[in-house]
């Protein structure tokens, strides 16, 4: 079933929308959640919560890209679950991603906490737009999808060490961009 038909089911409040969503995007969402949470059971629950959240948001929302829409919800839910699960103890794949991204930020001083995340997202998007496609994809696959270096290495044919160095440079460049934009 195509995206427009699935969205139409949500608008018609037809519960078939959830079954069709799971059939089309369940695997995609499970991968994201599993990457972040490292637990199949938690990932399964997050994906189920994704359909519920989507049910509550559509209508009035009419997503431009259903895949990205579901993926975002899954990612947000997974991070929230991780935060709740490990309020004190940092664990799972996300902790590693946060560690890596922290390199783009200074540890002390810097911007006010009141800076809007959406504006920061625009700055990050601008940075990504300027990258060659392969670099952009590697960055998004690592920090949006939470793919492991090993997964990326196997898929891209780039050795893990080379890949990790490449990501180091991308993070360094992002930090420079954020510095130029006075985010840090």
């Amino acid at each position, binding site marked *: 079933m195509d995206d427009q038909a699935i969205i139409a089911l949500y608008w018609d409040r037809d519960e078939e929308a959830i079954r069709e969503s799971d059939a089309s995007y369940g695997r995609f969402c499970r991968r994201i959640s599993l990457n972040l949470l490292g637990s199949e059971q938690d990932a399964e629950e997050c994906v189920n919560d994704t359909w519920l959240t989507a049910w509550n948001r559509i209508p009035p929302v009419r997503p431009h*890209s259903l895949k990205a829409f579901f993926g975002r919800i899954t990612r947000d839910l997974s991070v929230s679950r991780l935060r709740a699960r490990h309020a004190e103890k940092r664990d799972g794949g996300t902790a590693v991603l946060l560690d890596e991204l922290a390199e783009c930020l200074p*540890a002390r001083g810097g911007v006010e906490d009141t800076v809007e995340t959406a504006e920061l997202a625009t700055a990050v998007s601008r940075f990504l737009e300027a990258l060659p496609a392969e670099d952009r994809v590697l960055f998004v*696959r690592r920090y*949006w*999808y939470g793919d492991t270096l090993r997964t990326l290495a196997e898929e891209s044919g780039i050795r893990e060490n080379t890949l990790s160095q490449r990501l180091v440079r991308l993070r360094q460049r992002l930090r420079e961009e954020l510095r130029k934009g006075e985010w840090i």
Partner: protein
Amino acid sequence: MTEEKLFQAVGGIPDEMIEEADSYTFEKKPLSKFRLPQIAAVLAVVCLIGGGIWLGTRSMGRSNNHNAADPVGENGLEFQAYVGPVLPLTAEGNTEGISAERSVDYDFQDGKGTAAKITDRYLLTNSSGQEQTLSLLYPVLLSLGDAPDRLPAVSINGEAADTVWRCTDFDCFSYGTIQLNDGEDYPVLNEWSDWKSFAALFEAAGCASHTYAEGELPDLPLTVYRVRQENADAASAAPVAELSFFADPSKTTFLTYGMNGYHLKGDSGRYGVCSWLNEPRSSKCLLIVYGDDVSDILLEGYTDGSCEKKSEAPVNAVYEREETTLQALLPELLREWSINYRQGVRLSSLFFSAPEQLLTAMLSDLLCQYEPLLDSWHLNQYLGPAFLEDLFQKLFTGNIYYLAFSVTLPAGGSAEINCEMTRSASRNNICRHKKSDPPSDLLGYDMAAKLGSSLSFTSLEASLSGASRITMLDNNFGFDPAAGILQAKLDPAQDYYWMRLILTTDSGAEK
């Protein structure tokens, strides 16, 4: 700002980027799940069990894609341990009016093991009406762990040239090593095992324009705690000394040198670094602190390496605090590390003859890759406590080095440049399962005629010496040792020449 805020911001990227990342097809072929060293190890075992499978036929191993006229195919030589071709001399700056005649000799009599002695000769002629001074660069694939004779000896008109080593940026071109079943390390180009991929990378990297001979280390302020034995003969003292302290990992990066790693001391929030006092890894045991200093330092004795059981005996060590910089500390530790390396690994290697300013520049280049991590003020998986020792080890990553020298050619004059070196062969470590597989002791030598060179070559020749030690399987030089053809005139416009052979004894029996 926190990293979580940034993580959320990454979550807000446009839908198109999310879709693009999911549907993107990488151009490179996927890596095998089994890495080359693993394959080599497995095949080495199979080889041992099989015991000398290839003893008979001399027939050429050919891939299905190759034909009799071009047995190696468009990829050129392909080997598990592909060491790359002999590369041509090049020059920086204007070379107008300069022509070059080149001849390359492969001497199997004077080589060691599977290596051949290569003499790469050039006759440079200045046909312009004025004197010209050329800045020449002779490229060679090397690792600092290689034997000293791998470094080309360059002479100009019979006199040793005054050469300067240069290294190519590590992110431009570097390779690792593979240990084959003869126990020796062989260089392996990153993901490339054939000429075609090598040439593509070499050109893309533009190696000659990314070289350096000198560089400065960053002047980062550090606090160093040196732990040392108080009495060398205190046999009744605790065998392990642990330095424990409080540190805020968000404000402090700590590294060690010569210590046995670090550990968190339960839920106390204290970190500990330890060293065996009777068998220290190094004569220098350091805790190196970058950022906020550590606090509440304790030096205690333990009976075990994991520092779980406190010793009742006194600890036979003291610690001293000093403030220094990375710029001052790193050369000291590199010198210390090289002593351990010489004792533990290899008595003789290029590392010991590399100029100190080049090593400093290489460390600086490597550190640039880690600078974001150092600046992030926290320890993570990329920056373990033994980071500095790992960094020194990385100096041995193979790379394309250049020997830079200059020569002055009077108007109408010429100069003869000789570059002599020993080079290992490219080789496999596979068993022969069927007749079409290449013999396991097949060796490959190849040569680039013009790759990466700005010189204009008017003639190119090649010759074989010590041919009684080899059985030539095939080549595109035009050699035929069996028929006594040991010299070949080559086309300088053709970029690639190769030969595949098997070493034999002088009597002609197989090795």
